[in-house]
């Protein structure tokens, strides 16, 4: 097992799948010679050529629409949206088209595409290079939504996504790209889309998170552990399908639940976790279901003091853990 960055896991997944299956191709802005603005596709252009590693026009609806069309005609596209913030113009293609192609044609036409996008903040990205977009897509039946938080998962889940017969939204937290390093198993493996992973066992309360916030939650859990608060941290990994079984089982055990996300509070996907808990684990609940989220402002500011103030962080999370433990 070699230690690698999260983005290296992403890169390897595409490289291996392209080598394995010549129907797989990559498209997006700057994915070619430049290797992507984060270098997720570095080396692929040289290895597989322009037709399979295509720099598209600057048009996100086109990127997704071409991916859909190419999938209808036998290819397996991996579309990169340069920043999740710029996925909005493709909303219609994703929601009206990709998510419904199978359903509306009663299975005659399908849409095995992957849409990758770097999301999340804490990188001086300002209002338009920092956003969380998972809530929009996790709401849409027909899509799968995957949010890896470790290099191993990034690789294994992306390989699963590429092989998945349905459209998969694959969101990579850009701050974790190089910040998060971890072991990537040697050789061929995939990680199934669906199951959550319990990253830290604990008995006092359950904390659900994904992406960078999963790491911050782990940090916070360590901090409060010293105070005798034993937190279970669940990395959801996949928001759609959501592993409600693991969520409910964890709350049954701990009796308390909180969700952490970087997206703003109202209507964020944390609400869904809360709702699942409030409906299906109600009788085990010993306290309110807390959400630690960004406030309801349109996105995080560029200037550092305000960016810091916007982001949930280990300190804020630990505070909520204490509050919940004390309830």
């Amino acid at each position, binding site marked *: 097992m070699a230690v690698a960055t999260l983005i290296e896991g992403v890169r390897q997944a595409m490289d291996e799948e392209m080598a394995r299956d010549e129907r797989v191709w990559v498209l997006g802005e700057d994915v070619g010679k430049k290797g992507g603005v984060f270098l997720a596709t570095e080396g692929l252009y040289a290895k597989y050529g322009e037709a399979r590693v295509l720099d598209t026009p600057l048009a996100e609806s*086109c990127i997704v629409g071409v991916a859909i*069309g*190419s999938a209808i005609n036998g*290819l397996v596209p991996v579309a990169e949206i340069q920043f999740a913030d710029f996925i909005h113009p493709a909303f219609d293609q994703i929601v009206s088209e990709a998510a419904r192609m199978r359903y509306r044609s009663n299975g005659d036409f399908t849409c095995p595409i992957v849409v990758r996008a770097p999301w999340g903040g804490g990188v001086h990205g300002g209002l338009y290079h920092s956003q969380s977009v998972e809530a929009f897509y996790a709401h849409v039946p027909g899509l799968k939504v995957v949010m890896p938080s470790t290099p191993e998962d990034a690789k294994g889940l992306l390989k699963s996504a590429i092989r998945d017969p349905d459209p998969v939204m694959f969101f990579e937290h850009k701050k974790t790209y190089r910040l998060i390093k971890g072991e990537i198993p040697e050789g061929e493996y995939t990680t199934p889309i669906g199951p959550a992973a319990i990253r830290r066992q604990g008995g006092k309360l359950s904390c659900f998170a994904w992406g960078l916030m999963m790491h911050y939650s782990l940090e916070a859990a360590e901090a409060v552990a010293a105070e005798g608060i034993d937190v279970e941290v669940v990395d959801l990994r996949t928001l759609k399908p959501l592993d409600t079984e693991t969520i409910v089982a964890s709350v049954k055990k701990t009796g308390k639940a909180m969700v952490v996300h970087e997206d703003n509070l109202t209507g964020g996907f944390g609400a869904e976790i809360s709702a699942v808990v409030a409906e299906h684990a109600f009788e085990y609940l010993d306290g309110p279901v807390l959400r630690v989220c960004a406030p309801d402002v349109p996105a995080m500011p560029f200037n550092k003091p305000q960016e810091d103030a916007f982001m949930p962080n280990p300190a804020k999370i630990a505070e909520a853990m204490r509050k919940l433990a004390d309830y």
Partner: protein
Amino acid sequence: MTLDHDSLGLDSTLRPPWLSSLDRVLRHNQSQVSETVRQAQVRSAGLSEEQLLTMYRQMVLARAIDRRMWVLNRQGKAPFVISGQGHEAAQVGAAAALRPGVDWLVPYYRDLAFCIAMGMTALDFMYSVYARRPDPNSAARQMPSHFGLKRSRIVSASSPVATQIIHAAGIAYASKVRKLDEVAVTCIGEGGTSKGDWHEGLNFAGVHKLPFICIVQDNDYAISVPHRLQMGVDSVARRAEGYGLAGDTVDGGDILAVYAVMKRAVERARSGGGATLVAAKVARFTSHSSDDDQRRYRPQEELESLLRRDPIERFRTLLLDEGLLNEAGDERIQQEATTEVDEAVRTAEAAEPPEADDFTRGVYA
């Protein structure tokens, strides 16, 4: 075959007196076109007699189905109807240049005649009008005229206008990369060209010189919005050059002209010459759909003038004049179409609706 006057939105009680005599006027006008011109047209088209008659049959069948839909709608059997009447020559003329089952059709909701010409049967379609379980378009999940037929490479259509243009570009890109000798044809109304997706799809086709053809069926209206409020130009084909596409504006009521334009476009596509944008000027005979009443926004003279633009009547006259068809033969074709529609209606009506609980199936593989 006469026009369905009712489908002009003029229901029988309100039908104005001028309508009764218009068919005659129409037939008269058309026979004034010189015979030599017509014969030259037919010869130069490079279509066999059989092909020409097949095309005529497809138009007649499509019209018969279409008219029947409106009847079913008035009978309360078809809650929603959207029509292709007036667009048939543009569609069947285009289809004649394609290879069904090889070339792709990425259609829009007026493409009934196009789909028929590519291999859809009256029954396939009637199942969807009746929202019956065997509907091959969508298992009655979608409204009728949201076409989709795998065996004929007719790609499943949604309602949002213009999304399909990019799918066609993606299909064509795959054909090119996979070195498959296929052409992707996609249709849209002139209103749909205002959408971003139309632009993005055409631009992509231009960049990669794809085997892609976009046919804009320009009927002057997007529901009630007239051409002048839709675009600042007379024909969208003028946009072709700006994308590096070939462009043609064609009289979409002239089936042979459409065929000629499409034949060139298909040759261009298959020889690596790139994509084509065709603007076919057509007439929308009916209201936008069964939910619309075009008398609210189209002047009466305009509605009247439509009757002189029936593409089927025009083709019929041509075939009669050419001696490729006689009245008896025409009668037979009409009769066959009626029979096929009658049977389709009977079978569809008798078919089961979808199982209620079945609707949660097939969201994922």
